[in-house]
């Protein structure tokens, strides 16, 4: 994953003002920054959901503008889950798998995140933490080479947080690169030791606390 002097404007706001980033394959990076610093925006940019206003980037060697190749390699777990409210938990996972043309053990994944009892419940009726767990199960099932995670620890109980760490560590064990935007440096750094901080539209390396 590489970014070279990337600028990004949204509406009338300039969010990123020259971000440069190098993440070797398989590395885990924690992304910190204040509310509104632009973490989510940076993740969306990397997942080809937004185009940089200026500058360029590559993911696994593919130019960010080649959105199809990038989308093939990357998975973004958004803050709100990005689930279909009217599909059940199991259907949500099955849908994601089929869109990636992959097979996977949906009941097993649900059991892993403690949702075996809610497999047939619609995502609309899941609690905030359960939705987060479901999104996590999806990220773990898909196991894309580059996985971007937005605030994985929010809304979760202690067991849930440990689970996130466990599953994300497993992903890293499989050789996936991880980029985790979070407000809990201590929790995230267990999984992704390298730490970057986004402030004023610029990215800075930070020593581990």
């Amino acid at each position, binding site marked *: 994953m590489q970014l070279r002097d990337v600028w990004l404007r949204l509406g009338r706001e300039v969010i990123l003002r020259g971000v440069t980033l190098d993440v070797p394959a398989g590395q885990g990076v924690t992304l910190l920054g204040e509310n509104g610093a632009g973490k989510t925006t940076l993740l*969306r940019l990397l*997942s*080809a*959901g*937004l*185009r940089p206003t200026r500058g360029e980037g590559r993911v696994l060697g593919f130019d960010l503008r080649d*959105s*199809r190749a990038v*989308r*093939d390699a*990357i*998975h*973004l777990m*958004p803050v*709100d*889950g*990005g*689930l*279909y*409210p*009217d*599909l059940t938990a199991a*259907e949500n996972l099955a*849908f*994601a798998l*089929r*869109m*990636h*043309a992959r097979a996977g053990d949906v009941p097993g994944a649900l059991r892993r995140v403690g949702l075996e009892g809610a497999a047939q419940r619609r*995502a609309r009726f899941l609690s905030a933490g359960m939705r987060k767990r479901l999104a996590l199960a999806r990220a773990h099932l898909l196991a894309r080479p580059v996985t971007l995670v937005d605030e994985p620890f929010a809304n979760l109980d202690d067991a849930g947080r440990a689970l996130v760490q466990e599953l994300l560590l497993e992903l890293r064990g499989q050789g996936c690169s991880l980029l985790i935007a979070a407000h809990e440096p201590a929790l995230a750094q267990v999984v992704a030791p390298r730490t970057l901080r986004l402030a004023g539209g610029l990215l800075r390396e930070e020593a581990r606390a």
Partner: protein
Amino acid sequence: MKGALRQALTVAAKDLRVAGRTRDTLLATAFFAGIVLLVLGFALSGGVVSRDARLSAPLAAGAIWTALALAAAVGAQRAFAQEQEAGALEQLLAYPGPHGALYLGKLLGVLPPLLLVAAVTVPTGLVLFGASEAVTVAGRALPWAALALTTALGVLGFAAATTFYGSITVNLRAREALLPALAFPILVPAVLATVQATRLLLEGGWSPEVGTWLTFLTAFDLGTIILATLLFPAAVEG
């Protein structure tokens, strides 16, 4: 290619499942089609208009197809509003594969409820406007098969165009009114072709002229689908 087809089918299957579960789309489309028939039915029946068979055929055709064009617009809008809820649209666009496949998937998902609505609207409209009566009075049978073909082709064309515009208006303000406003002018050739075909069928059954209109309609459908599949990625990309 095969991957794209599989994706399209996956998206369509998902939409149909949700549609079957919430009945949201079906109700909304039926509602709009119902209003058109209701208002026009009350306005036009009972006066001079309905007693003249030469007048009732074009009226019935016009009312039915306006209703269906509207229903298509509403259905397409729902299809994308659904995705938009809870940020699922951004997630959908992030799946690998060509974005054109998503358009086809959405189209396939929009079609069945629309066809269902059409299957009710067409006969209702024909009865309501006295067209079916006029036909039987003239001693002919209603050409059901040809009408069904016209309906299918027409609905396909409507759905193809409105689904495309649905993707454009989904994250704009005032999208409910905007989508039909944008899509309708483009639909006019299709509306005209279906109206003419229906009118001719009602007035005199199958004829080569009907064939010409249906060919035109088929060309419109194919053209719209191909063009929309090509342009869709540009319309939705980040």
